[in-house]
Structure formats: C-alpha cells, structure tokens
C-alpha cells in the first residue's frame, strides 16, 4: 500500500489527484491538501470581474467530488516538508495547518510515500506598496472573490460615467516581475466591451499598464505567425486591436507605489511617472508558498529544496547564465525534485530555470522581467505525466522510467476574451507550439505550421466551450478522463 499526497487542488493538483485515483487501486491512498474549500476555473474569473458571470458558475465545492472518488481531502495548508522523514518515522512527512473542516488552526503531520507539490502561486500583493484588494486601492481577478469585488467597483465606475463624469481606468500588471499578462489583456478588452455596451466609452480613458516591453509579448517573448503568405508577429496583431479599441498602452512598467488615486511607476528608461486613476485592476507578482523544509535532524534545508522565489527546484538547469545562452534543454522534463526521487512539483509550483521573455533593468537597477506563464494546459499535462510516473513506480517498482514532457515540446492554447456575447463577443485565440521557444528546432523558436493567432467571435465560442468542458472534467463527471488536459 502506498500513500500519495498532493499539495494543492488547482488545475495541476486536482488533475494529478483525479488521475492518481483513477489509475491506482483503492488499497493505495490519495490525499489532497488544499486551504481552499472550492475549485475555481480561474480563466472565467475575467467574466465574473465584469459582472457577466456569477461567482457560482466558476467555483464548486471540492469535498463532495473527493468523497465520491475516494480521495482523502484535508482543507489545510502545507507549512513544512520533511523529505528525509524525522526521528519518529523514516518516511517523508508534510506538516499541515487546517483552514477548515472545523479544525482551523490545528496542525498535523501526515506521512507520504510520494508527494506532489502543486501549491500554485502565492499572490504577492505586498511586493508593491498599496497594491491589491486588502490595501483598498486596486482590484484583482486572481480569485473568484476578488473578481466579484472588481465587478462591483467597475459597476460603480460605469455609474459615474453615466452621470457624465469622465473616468480613468487602468488595467495591467502591478509589479515589474508579474506573469499572466494574458489575463490583464483579457480584462482590458472586457472592460472596454462593457464600457461600449453601457454607451459610455467616449467618457472613459482606458490604459493598459504592463511590464511587457512590447505588445503581444505575453511573457513568452511574443510569437511569430504565418499569415497571408507573410511572417507576422503577435506585436503587430495586438497593436492593431489596441488601436481599433482606443486602449492606451504603457509598456515596460514597474509600479512602485499605489494610493487611492495615483499609481507611481517607473518605465524602462528609468523615468518616474504618476498616473491618476478612478478604477484599477492590477495583477500581483507570484511567488511560491512559504513552505519550509527540514532534514531528519530538524535542520532547515529550505534553500536546498526551494528556490529563493519559494518555487520548488526540479530537474531543470538553474546555472546562472546570460539570456543569450539560455537553451530549451534547461527546462525540466520530469518535474522531479532535486535530491528526492519521490517528490515532484508541477504547474506554477516548480521553479522555472529562467524567463522566456527577455528580462530588462532600468538605469536605476529596477528589474522589469515578465515571468514565464505555467498555467492552464501545461499545468494539467505536467500533473498527468507525474501521476503516471507515480503509478509506474508503485506498480512496476522504483526503477520504472519517469514519464516526461517539457514546456519546450508541449503546445498550449490561450484564448483571451475581448468581450462576451454569443453574437457580439470576441476573443483573441492563440496556439503557441511550443510554449517555450526552441531555436535549435525552429528558426522562429516555434512551429509555424501550428502557431496561430486570430481574433473573432469564434474565439469567444471557444473560450465558452472550454469553460464548460473543463468544469465538467474537474467535477469528474462520466468520461472526464477523455477530455484532454
């Protein structure tokens, strides 16, 4: 009998847990540790954030799904890992602190034979002074509750516009090292769509404040497409959309301080600027969750297991080197932890070896470097191959070969909504193949036969279809495993 523990129940953790439960006999245990009681389809938070979808359509409770599937669920957060075991037991252990199930605050040590770290991001609003819902200045769409608040504040802004009061709206990234620029892009154009539907667009000034050095970068260094017999770029394509919609982009920014009315930010040239606003949705940078690691004697080995960012070190090449020397081979393939062959980190929880988009510094030394996205499709796929590796280790033995998939091999789909409505909606639909460019394989870094970017009504249909498909899959309804990651 083996005990498998999965930390986190987001896209990666939940996918890993469902596949493990499906592939392992009931005499093995699968335990999920997540501080959240609900599963959230985060891509649709964008629609909650403009008031076009209720929160209830993007979340559902995890406990009934796990009870039905035979997964042991602990509503708790991991606070420490003991990969070498401790004085009581040679097996690895995780110390958890409950956040629900009538045990809030209580701690417990649970043993594992195999551990999957899929803890997702810690939303580091504190990285920028005054950023985020808790500071009361800017809103976020990172969680369903944040998105509900964003919708309320946006509605209040639109009400003022209807009264004839000009308003300045800012959407973008709240720090120079943010990731998920695609989400900021989506929210920008959904806000634009709402302003137009309300008939108040002409009174509103809408800024897109981003850490990207060029439009269409999306934290992946942009994309090159084959379009109409020419090689076109995501920069050209997105610039066209910004011009058409009248959205004002400000690039290469790092906000330093946010008050209730002003965003103070630095640009790549080192200049400081003040932007007065009435409504702002700015994403936070991500970090790993603060989990400590201890050896068998109780010594702190956190720096051996986790990178300074808090993400777990895996089978990547973390050797520091200049941007020009980064290679596709640096990226992890098995997601196995450094030094421990029964621990893996998937999704946002693994430490990427480097950025995909070129990192930059201002003359003042401020780092403006979009972090690599590791959400959605790649997260699910990593989780599935790690689940398969664990199943093989249990069924075949410790010599079983690890399954592998690298972000330099896997493609991903990104459908960025630009407004809702079955006949008036639109979205930028992108396929990037692979996610991390491999210049040894493709002259442009990506496969031109499959890498695509288009905007249109069908993009909205695709995003809506993905919404229902992935919620169906996450609820583990009949045939869920047939829906690809």
């Amino acid at each position, binding site marked *: 009998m083996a005990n498998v523990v999965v930390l986190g129940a987001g896209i990666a953790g939940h996918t890993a847990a469902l596949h493990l439960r499906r592939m392992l006999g009931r005499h093995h245990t699968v335990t999920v540790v997540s501080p959240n009681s609900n599963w959230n389809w985060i891509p649709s938070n964008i629609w909650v954030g403009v008031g076009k979808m209720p929160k209830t359509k993007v979340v559902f409770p995890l406990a009934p799904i796990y009870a039905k599937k035979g997964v042991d669920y602990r509503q708790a957060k991991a606070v420490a890992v003991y990969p070498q075991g401790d004085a009581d037991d040679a097996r690895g252990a995780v110390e958890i602190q409950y956040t629900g199930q009538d045990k809030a605050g209580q701690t417990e040590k649970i043993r594992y034979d195999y551990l999957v770290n899929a803890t997702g991001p810690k939303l580091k609003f504190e990285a920028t002074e005054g950023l985020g819902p808790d500071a009361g200045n800017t809103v976020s769409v990172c969680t369903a509750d944040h998105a509900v608040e964003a919708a309320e504040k946006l509605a209040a802004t639109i009400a003022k516009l209807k009264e004839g009061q000009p308003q*300045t709206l800012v959407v973008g990234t709240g720090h120079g090292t943010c990731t998920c620029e695609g989400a900021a892009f989506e929210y920008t154009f959904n806000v634009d769509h709402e302003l137009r539907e309300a008939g108040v667009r002409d009174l509103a000034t809408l800024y897109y404040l981003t850490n990207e050095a060029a439009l269409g970068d999306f934290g992946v260094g942009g994309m090159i497409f084959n379009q109409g017999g020419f090689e076109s770029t995501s920069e050209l394509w997105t*610039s066209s959309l910004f011009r058409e919609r009248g959205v004002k982009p400000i*690039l290469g920014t790092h906000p330093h301080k946010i008050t209730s009315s002003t965003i103070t930010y630095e640009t790549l040239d080192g200049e400081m600027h003040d932007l*007065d606003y009435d409504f702002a949705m700015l994403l936070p940078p991500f970090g790993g969750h603060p989990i400590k690691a201890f050896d068998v004697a109780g010594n702190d080995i956190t720096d051996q297991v986790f990178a300074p960012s808090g993400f777990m070190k895996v089978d990547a090449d973390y050797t520091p080197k200049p941007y020009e020397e980064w290679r596709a081979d640096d990226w992890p393939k098995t997601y196995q932890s450094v030094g421990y062959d029964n621990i893996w980190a998937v999704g946002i929880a693994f430490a990427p070896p480097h950025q995909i988009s070129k990192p930059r510094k201002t003359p003042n030394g401020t780092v403006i470097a979009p972090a690599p996205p590791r959400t959605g499709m790649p997260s699910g796929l990593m989780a599935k191959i790690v689940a398969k590796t664990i199943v093989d280790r249990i069924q075949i033995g410790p010599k079983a070969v690890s399954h592998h998939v690298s972000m330099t091999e896997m493609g991903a789909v990104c459908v960025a909504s630009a407004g809702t409505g079955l006949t008036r909606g639109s979205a930028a639909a992108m*396929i990037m193949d692979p996610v991390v460019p491999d210049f040894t394989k493709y002259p442009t870094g990506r496969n031109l036969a499959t890498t695509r970017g288009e905007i*249109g009504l069908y993009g909205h249909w*695709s995003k809506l279809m993905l919404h229902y498909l992935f919620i169906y899959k996450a609820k583990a309804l009949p045939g869920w495993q047939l829906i690809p990651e």
Partner: protein
Amino acid sequence: MTEQNIQPSEPKPQPVLDLTRAPMPNVKTLKARYNPFSQFGRFVAFNYRIMKMVVSSGH
C-alpha cells in the same frame, strides 16, 4: 514608438505607445470577425488544430 500624449482630461502626461502605425482593420475585416457562418468555419478549424496538437503530443 513612444510619445508624450497630453489630453485635456489627463493633467499628467503619460508615455503612451504610439499606435498610429499599427494596422487598422477595415470594415470588411471587422464584419468578418462577427459573421457567424465564417466564424463557425474558423471555430471548427481552430479546434481541429488543437486536437491535432493534443493527439501528436500524447496528452
């Protein structure tokens, strides 16, 4: 590509990206983006490409 845009409603100038050279979609393109028939064709083609990629990568 960067210029200082000063507008009456904006007391502080912002380094907004100059988009005057970005291609502006014409009426035909904008209409095509909302034509349900052509969009249905693109919807099928887009999802076919996704499935092809999924199958070839062994998802």
